[in-house]
């Protein structure tokens, strides 16, 4: 446990934090200076933010599932912390995906929300991740909590194909995967592609920094719980050793 805290509080997380700040700043800057597109005017700039944020919401679930498998196999607490940290940060990015998608949807489709399958399934993913956080908070610390969170993560990973293939399955109005098209250049202008790729890197680095920090907070919370328990035990022992009770340990 202390090993994780040391590594988490070293220079690497600080570097990751600065890198994410610079990269996200560069993404936003590049998105703002790009010329506006003919079809979507100013709103096309959202391509630098929305697809990368959506990408991270997927990455978070995959990373959580990998951490879950490692936790079940090795029983190391650090993997449990990585698991819940990734689920929580994933919930934040899923909410951001919905928010940015909604902002983009208003001028493009004329409504803030439509029952597009990809939007709907992303909203369901958010509900599942919120459920993960609620479940985690309800469970007492320990090995059992790690096992429950791990199985939850693996089951959530199984839902991802439903999200991913929902566009093809339900014939959505959502734009098909721009980058996976036979010729990406026909779907998005190259300056926008550049901004989007920078966004992918920037938000992935930001996600990594947030996960490291969240895992560190989890470790500190576990330490605080142990400390409180130790103090409570010491206080009960001290009560037993009081002047009115010379025989400690006798109830």
């Amino acid at each position, binding site marked *: 446990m202390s090993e994780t805290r040391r590594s988490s509080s070293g220079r690497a997380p600080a570097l990751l934090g600065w890198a994410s700040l610079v990269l996200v700043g560069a993404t936003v800057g590049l998105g703002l200076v790009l010329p506006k597109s003919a079809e979507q005017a100013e709103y096309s700039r959202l391509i630098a933010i929305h697809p990368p944020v959506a990408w991270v919401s997927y990455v978070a679930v995959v990373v959580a599932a990998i951490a879950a498998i490692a936790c*079940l196999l090795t029983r190391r607490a650090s993997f449990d912390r990585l698991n819940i940290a990734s689920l929580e940060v994933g919930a934040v990015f899923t909410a951001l995906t919905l928010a940015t998608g909604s902002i983009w949807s208003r001028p493009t489709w004329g409504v803030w929300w439509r029952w597009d399958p990809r939007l709907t*399934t992303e909203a*369901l993913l958010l*509900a*599942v991740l*919120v*459920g993960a956080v*609620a*479940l985690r908070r*309800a*469970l007492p610390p320990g*090995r*059992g*909590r*790690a*096992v*429950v969170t791990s*199985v*939850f993560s*693996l*089951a959530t990973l*199984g*839902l991802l*194909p*439903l999200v991913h293939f929902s566009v093809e*399955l339900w014939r959505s109005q959502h734009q098909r995967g721009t980058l996976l098209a036979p010729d990406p250049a026909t779907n998005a202008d190259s300056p926008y592609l550049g901004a989007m790729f920078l966004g992918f890197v920037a938000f992935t680095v930001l996600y990594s920094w947030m996960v490291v920090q969240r895992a560190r907070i989890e470790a500190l919370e576990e330490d605080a719980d142990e400390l409180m328990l130790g103090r409570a035990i010491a206080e009960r022992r001290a009560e037993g050793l009081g002047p009115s009770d010379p025989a400690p340990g006798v109830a």
Partner: protein
Amino acid sequence: MWADAGLVAGKDLRIELRSRVGINQVLPFSLVVLVLFALALDPDSGTLDAAAPGLFWVAVLLSSLLATQRSFAVEAADGNRDGLRMSGLDPAGLFLGKAGAVAAQLLVLEALLLVGISLLYGTDLASFGLLALTCLLATLGLAGAGTVYGVMAFGLRVRETLLPLLVLPVMAPVLLAATRSFEAAIERDAGAATSWLGVLAAFAVLYFVVGMFGFGPLLEEA
């Protein structure tokens, strides 16, 4: 494993038959839901008939929550949980037994609800084979997922409020696929139901695999 599953399912179904919670509470609840839908949507406007497949599966989904809660509530009293842990029964068998008992109850409930929507909503229940297959696959998915999340929340003081939050978003694909497949059955369009039946089967397989491998550690450690 199968013998253990049969033992656990038999035990759960015997409890339900004797306590009659399913017949006296869950079934009337689902019928009340059907009536409430009819009150909310004007029965004469045609909306009710068009929405019947979705309303049927919402009623089943809500009832499956009650059945899952009930399945674990009977294990919460009198130290039954420790009894299950120490019983020496195969964990995969335990999962199959619990899920199987929930599925059996849901299938009976669905049969009665089908009669209910036929009478109350005037839905024409054509293509019986397709309807039965839809009900079977969807029920396996609902029972499997419900049992997986039920054991996760097992023993928690907040399980009554937590379980719906865990289960309902996860079961939304079943609701969607089962509704579309049900619609296809009513319209006698078996081709349209194929991909939806695939979704239902994939969902059921996913949660049965997770349950068979995860139930033991979840029961032991949680």
